[in-house]
């Protein structure tokens, strides 16, 4: 019988009621009295010198309040980068300025040139069309390998190169790795791309800036995964507003997937303009605008080599990756191809020597930053594709080759500087083989072939580092922020609890899952616990939600705060029960004295805390409210094994996903229903990356996939029902809940399974020359692969 409350229960989500009845409160639902609207005039060329911006005619148009250009932001800070990477030679990365509105040059299609603030959206847009912009178009740097050659157009003239950094990891391993390759019995080499994606949360970004002259306070309502981070970055680095005069609210947020982590120009602009004009200023992105202003994801070009000995043991791994930064450094961009990627290159395998080289390149494209998985999908795709190719070259079973090289003893220190605390990769693979019915594949293939279709099966593993992150460690690695999380547990007089968390929920179900934990700890119904998040005015400084960190870090902070509450409550109970504190036990919402029938209810203790008539005032303060900050001591390491079965139509190249199975190890599970939902969503995004999604530029830097007309989002008919399992949890050893995080797994583990399956299908059809297909494996690409 499944539990119906507390940890392990599939409690239905309480937040659903407002979303199902249309009573959610998303940022675009917020309209303030006297509100103005801003429209950004954006560059339609990828690279150009701004000769002049004449706003005089536009400024005179009806409804226009004021037009801002780059000149209005001279002397005001640019958008900061939150992570500094040090290159192979000990030099800091190149860090060009990122102005709120373009100054001197435009550097990508969509770069904002001017901002028109007007009484209506239409008036703003009309006036934007009347701005006379003289831009001298320059040749664009688009292809990364071309961009780092001598003589390439420079995205930023002042830094003299398009190479942001040339990173080696672990540099000290390079010589030994090269030597292992020289001595290898077999080397498998694969060149591949990790396609550029657009995160596309269904809610486009929105910002509403407000300013209260009476107290000199600014408020920004914004679609953010981490309002405190925005407050810090925007307040301290861009606008110079102290945090106590700046409130950032991220109300209901319609999905994030990474792209709503970052601090964007539009947020700073709305906050700035509201102060200048003393009226609220609102910006609502259109989807078309989102394609050219939301940070993109992925976009790596990689050569990976795997060395094996005569017994097929992995002896070394070596990669060279070009990672696209786009035109400016987005908030956490430099960390993605380095510390979120290089450190995962061991995968699930005991490869003793690894060397990763990453060249981060500026191009005249939209900035690239974290998107669901962030670095880890890129690592997983390389590792699992090259292993698959090796298995085919060596004519060995791809699963057996993986199992042979699995890490089996924990803790395990990888050659890429992380220590996996727990895991059982054979267990998840065993479960996968069962739920994916691998033994029935031959019969299914025969049935497909009878219908003239090619059927393929692809399997892969993944590991990720989540629960981001130990602050002292990431500080050493270049992070300019701490990555702890916070929680305040406020017990009310009548026993109900309000938890203020620094985590942010934008689909993950915190409002349901977090109370399950408190309910379990105290033994009170979940309904007695309410979660507040998303407003810097009433939550402690928190770092927000990304990197599958909410429960592992934010949940841990909440546990720590709840422990403090319980400890204090036990003191009060001991007083009320006239017993020693050490003898007080808390179970099912009742404090009792061990070995006696004396007890006092939770609500009586909480009431005593606020009505302290019979209370140990000489020892403890009244009230029952505690705050904790939790800084993890290590990352968490979710892992798993995924299986995809596809059918390929040899006449058209169209790939159909026939089945998909995922066996994950997320450690302990608080709400299995929510965890499954997270995996489902990740799988669909992984299938999207593998089959459909392609953010493409032409050679002039024009965005070809600029709307849903050309950027293929996965739809219901593109995916099957998924088989997911998370029964093989090996609890995390270093956080109080033993949880690992589940939000990104699907997006990390899925793409190689799909491509492995397609390659398998094509080879089964006699196309023995096919070892790889770049993503997305569109019908035309698959068909072309069959023609060679």
């Amino acid at each position: 019988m499944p539990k119906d409350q507390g940890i392990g229960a599939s409690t239905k989500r309480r937040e659903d009621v407002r979303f199902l009845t249309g009573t959610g409160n998303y940022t675009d639902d917020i309209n303030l009295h006297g509100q103005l609207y801003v429209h950004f005039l954006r560059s339609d060329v990828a690279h150009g010198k701004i000769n002049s911006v004449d706003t005089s005619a536009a400024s005179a148009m009806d409804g226009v309040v004021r037009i801002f250009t780059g000149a209005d932001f001279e002397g005001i800070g640019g958008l900061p980068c939150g992570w500094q990477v040090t290159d192979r030679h000990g030099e800091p990365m190149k860090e060009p300025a990122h102005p709120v509105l373009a100054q001197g040059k435009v550097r990508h299609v969509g770069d904002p040139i001017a901002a028109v603030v007007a009484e209506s959206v239409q008036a703003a847009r009309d006036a934007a069309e009347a701005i006379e912009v003289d831009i001298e178009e320059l040749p664009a740097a688009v292809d990364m390998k071309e961009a780092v050659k001598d003589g390439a157009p420079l995205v930023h003239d002042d830094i003299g190169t398009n190479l942001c950094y040339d990173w080696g990891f672990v540099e000290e391993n390079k010589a030994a790795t090269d030597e292992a390759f020289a001595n290898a019995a077999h080397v498998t080499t694969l060149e591949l791309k990790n396609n550029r994606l657009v995160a596309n949360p269904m809610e486009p970004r929105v910002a509403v800036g407000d300013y209260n002259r009476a107290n000199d306070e600014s408020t920004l309502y914004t679609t953010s995964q981490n309002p405190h981070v925005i407050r810090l970055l925007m307040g301290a680095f861009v606008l110079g507003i102290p945090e106590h005069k700046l409130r950032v609210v991220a109300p209901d947020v319609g999905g994030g997937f990474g792209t709503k982590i970052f601090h964007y120009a539009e947020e700073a602009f709305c906050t700035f303009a509201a102060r200048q004009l003393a009226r609220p200023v609102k910006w609502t992105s259109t989807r078309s605008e989102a394609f050219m202003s939301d940070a993109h994801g992925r976009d790596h070009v990689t050569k990976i080599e795997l060395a094996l000995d005569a017994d097929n043991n992995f002896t070394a791994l070596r990669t060279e990756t070009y990672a696209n930064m786009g035109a400016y450094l987005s908030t956490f961009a430099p960390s993605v191809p380095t510390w979120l990627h290089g450190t995962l290159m061991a995968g699930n395998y005991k490869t003793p020597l690894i060397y990763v080289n990453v060249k981060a390149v500026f191009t005249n494209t939209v900035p690239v930053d974290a998107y669901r998985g962030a670095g880890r999908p890129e690592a997983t795709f390389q590792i699992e594709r090259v292993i698959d190719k090796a298995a085919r070259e060596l004519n060995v079973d791809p699963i057996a080759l993986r199992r042979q090289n699995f890490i089996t003893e924990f803790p395990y220190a990888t050659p890429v500087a992380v220590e996996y605390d727990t895991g059982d990769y054979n267990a998840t693979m065993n479960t996968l083989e069962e739920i994916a019915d691998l033994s029935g594949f031959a019969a299914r293939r025969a049935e497909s072939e009878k219908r003239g279709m090619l059927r393929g099966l692809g399997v892969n593993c993944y590991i990720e580092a989540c629960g981001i992150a130990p602050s002292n460690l990431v500080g050493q690695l270049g992070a300019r922020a701490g990555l702890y999380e916070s929680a305040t547990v406020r017990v009310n007089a009548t026993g109900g609890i309000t938890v203020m968390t620094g985590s942010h929920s934008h689909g993950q179900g915190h409002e349901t899952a977090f109370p399950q934990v408190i309910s379990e700890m105290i033994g009170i119904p979940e309904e007695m616990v309410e979660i507040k998040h998303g407003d810097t005015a009433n939550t402690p400084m928190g770092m927000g939600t990304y990197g599958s960190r909410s429960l592992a870090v934010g949940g841990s902070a909440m546990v720590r705060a709840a422990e403090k509450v319980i400890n204090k409550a036990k003191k009060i109970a001991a007083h009320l029960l006239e017993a020693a504190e050490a003898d007080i036990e808390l179970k099912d919402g009742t404090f009792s004295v061990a070995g006696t029938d004396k007890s006092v209810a939770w609500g009586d203790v909480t009431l005593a805390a606020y009505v302290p008539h019979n209370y140990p005032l000489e020892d403890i303060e009244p009230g029952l409210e505690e705050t904790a900050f939790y800084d993890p001591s290590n990352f968490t390491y979710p892992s798993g094994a995924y299986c995809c079965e596809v059918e390929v139509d040899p006449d058209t190249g169209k790939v159909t996903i026939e089945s998909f199975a995922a066996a994950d190890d997320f450690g302990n599970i608080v709400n299995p229903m929510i965890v499954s939902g997270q995996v489902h969503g990740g799988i669909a995004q992984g299938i999207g990356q593998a089959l459909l999604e392609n953010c493409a530029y032409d050679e002039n830097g024009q965005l070809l996939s600029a709307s849903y007309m050309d950027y293929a989002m996965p739809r219901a008919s593109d995916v099957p029902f998924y088989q997911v399992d998370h029964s093989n949890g090996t609890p995390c050893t270093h956080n109080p809940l033993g949880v690992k995080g589940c939000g990104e797994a699907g997006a990390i583990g899925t793409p190689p399974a799909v491509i492995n399956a397609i390659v398998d299908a094509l080879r089964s059809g006699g196309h023995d020359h096919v070892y790889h297909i770049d993503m997305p494996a569109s019908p035309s690409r698959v068909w072309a692969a069959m023609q060679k």
Partner: protein
Amino acid sequence: MSKVSMTVNGKAVSGDVKGNTLLVEFLREDLRLTGTHVGCDTSQCGACTIHVNGKSAKACTMFAAEADGADITTVEGMANADGSLSVIQQAFQDHHGLQCGFCTPGMVMTAAALLKENPKPTEAEVRHYLEGNICRCTGYHNIVKAIMAASGQDVSAIAAE
């Protein structure tokens, strides 16, 4: 400006609109029915799906003037008379058919239109009918499951957790 009158969720409403006022703008801004969302500008995401005279339509791809005299239902009008969740809404909650909630109003409206036309749809029919509703969170698994459950079909055999 011209005057439009229509019935929205059973209530007669009217307002002055410009020719280029979209129906979704009239609903969200004039009537403050913000449950209907705008997720794209190419008529593809379906977050703005409503019912016009009993049939689904994208409120972002229709002018308010075109709805003059029409009977409109939005997600705000979908709950039972006593305010409790309708069968479809309840199925979405029971089967975790939503995460961030942004596409959800459109999904609920499309599901209602489907079940009206086809009371016992197959999995393939549900997926096909959702062609114009994009969800980025759920991978559709639990949406399809919820709609089949709302139609009274036994979904216990569909992979749950």
